């Protein structure tokens, strides 16, 4: 059922409160770019547990969630801090320790699973994969071409996240969301997930969207709720609004517990909460 054109803007804290323990979350963006990081941190403040993270190329987001012990399972293609920071250290440790279960994908196989969900079918063919040990690891099946024109093709089972959570540049009061620059895998995530939440840099007049509706990534009827918070992708980038805050990423990577606490306290949504008190 569609979600009517009611006002949908609420605080980041309320948005996070919609997500229960154990939920599977498709997170938008890639590595340090266009991630809905304010919401990710809010999940930590609300002590969410047993989350499943679905994202082709997570980094900071999955790392900080693993650091806080909020993750049960990861379904990912490539995980790194990127920049010059290399591996995502707390994620790495969580996998090595067995604290987090990993379903390792190629990025495109994860996309194929999301496409199956978006297209309403139980499986999705995906090119390549042949010779990769990921196929056996994940039990991916090869099917012959029933039309006899090609060899065997791998099919990936449907992946249906409970939530897609994306960072938009602009949102309307009704929840329409648009993104500038690349939208990574955000589009297919919003079509594959059961529920869609949006974090946006700013709210604009609905007429702004009416003037250029081609730019809308997610129409309002698919969006359950949205939060508006400038700098919500911090310490990552949100094109064209701001770039990566590398010193903040470096500070986050400090090994002592204070580094995490300081980092959480410095985040824009933490200031929002104080303002709301």
């Amino acid at each position: 059922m569609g979600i009517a054109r009611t006002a949908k803007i609420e605080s980041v804290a309320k948005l996070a409160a919609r997500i229960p323990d154990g939920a599977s979350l498709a997170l938008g963006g890639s590595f340090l770019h266009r991630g809905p990081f304010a919401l990710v941190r809010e999940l930590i403040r609300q002590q969410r547990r047993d989350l499943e993270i679905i994202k082709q190329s997570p980094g900071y987001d999955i790392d900080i969630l693993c650091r806080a012990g909020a993750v049960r399972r990861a379904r990912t293609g490539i995980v790194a801090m990127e920049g010059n920071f290399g591996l995502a250290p707390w994620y790495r440790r969580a996998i090595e320790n067995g604290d987090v279960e990993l379903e390792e994908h190629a990025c495109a196989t994860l996309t194929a699973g999301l496409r199956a969900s978006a297209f309403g079918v139980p499986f999705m063919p995906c090119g390549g994969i042949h010779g990769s040990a990921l196929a056996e690891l994940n039990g991916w099946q090869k099917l012959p071409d029933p039309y006899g024109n090609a060899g065997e093709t791998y099919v990936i089972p449907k992946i249906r996240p409970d939530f897609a959570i994306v960072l938009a540049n602009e949102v309307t009061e009704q929840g329409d969301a648009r993104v500038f620059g690349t939208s990574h895998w955000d589009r297919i995530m919003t079509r594959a997930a059961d529920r869609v939440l949006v974090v946006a840099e700013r709210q604009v007049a609905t007429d702004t969207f009416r003037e250029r509706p081609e730019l809308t990534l997610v129409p309002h009827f698919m969006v359950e709720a949205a939060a508006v918070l400038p700098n919500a992708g911090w310490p990552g980038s949100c094109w064209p609004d701001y770039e990566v805050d590398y010193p903040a990423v470096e500070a986050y990577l400090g090994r002592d517990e204070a580094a995490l606490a300081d980092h959480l306290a410095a985040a824009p949504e933490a200031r929002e909460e104080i303002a709301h008190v």
Partner: protein
Amino acid sequence: MSESWSPFAYIVTNLARFIRPHEVTFSGVNSSLPMLACLLARRAYDFDFTYINVAGGVDPIPSSVPISSSDPVLAEGSTAIFGNEDFYDLCTRGGMDLCFLGAAQVDGRGRTNVSAIGDWHHPKVRLPGGGGGAVMLPTAKRSVTWRTEHSRRTMVETLDFVTAAGGMHGVVTPIAVFVKQNDRLALASWHPESSLEEVRERTAFDFEAGQARPTESPTQREIEALAALDPERRFETDAAIVLRKEAV
């Protein structure tokens, strides 16, 4: 009252009455009457619903009502373009509540033929084809169709070809409204100027009619909404729908 309820207005109004609050409702190509029904519902009913259409519009505010139900003016004022791939996917994944789908023949199970009259391979009449039907009819939560002619050659016992199966939730004709009941179309109501007997006479399939009665007259708001959408009765004239042929 009933004499003012033209078969054109009867169809548009009864299609609109299938729209429910908060649902996602879709109208497609070759579908002027459902297009008008969606626009009528916006004006006449006190609830919100999502109206998406084949022109990519999502809750549009068209500056005029186009002759073609796929005209891009139907995306005017829309805050998004929700294109063909998008709305088909929405339907197949179970997110479409109500689809208006065309049909040339309908059978008692609510299946449709939009492909050919006669043998498909050697058709007497090649019809347009089912468009989204074969995919949308089995996957939308509810589908509704309309026929501007109610006769034994449109409301058939046996389809010449099964273009789409899965079962219509509702069918509206100039004289009747059918709603699915236990996987068969059942008569829900008849035009106040028609009768159960006439509907039976002009329908080739058997149907239940235990709940059926005359269709509720159009409300003042329904009448006004349609008058506002078609002030010069251009759509009504073009559609040229009659309650019954002079000599059946």
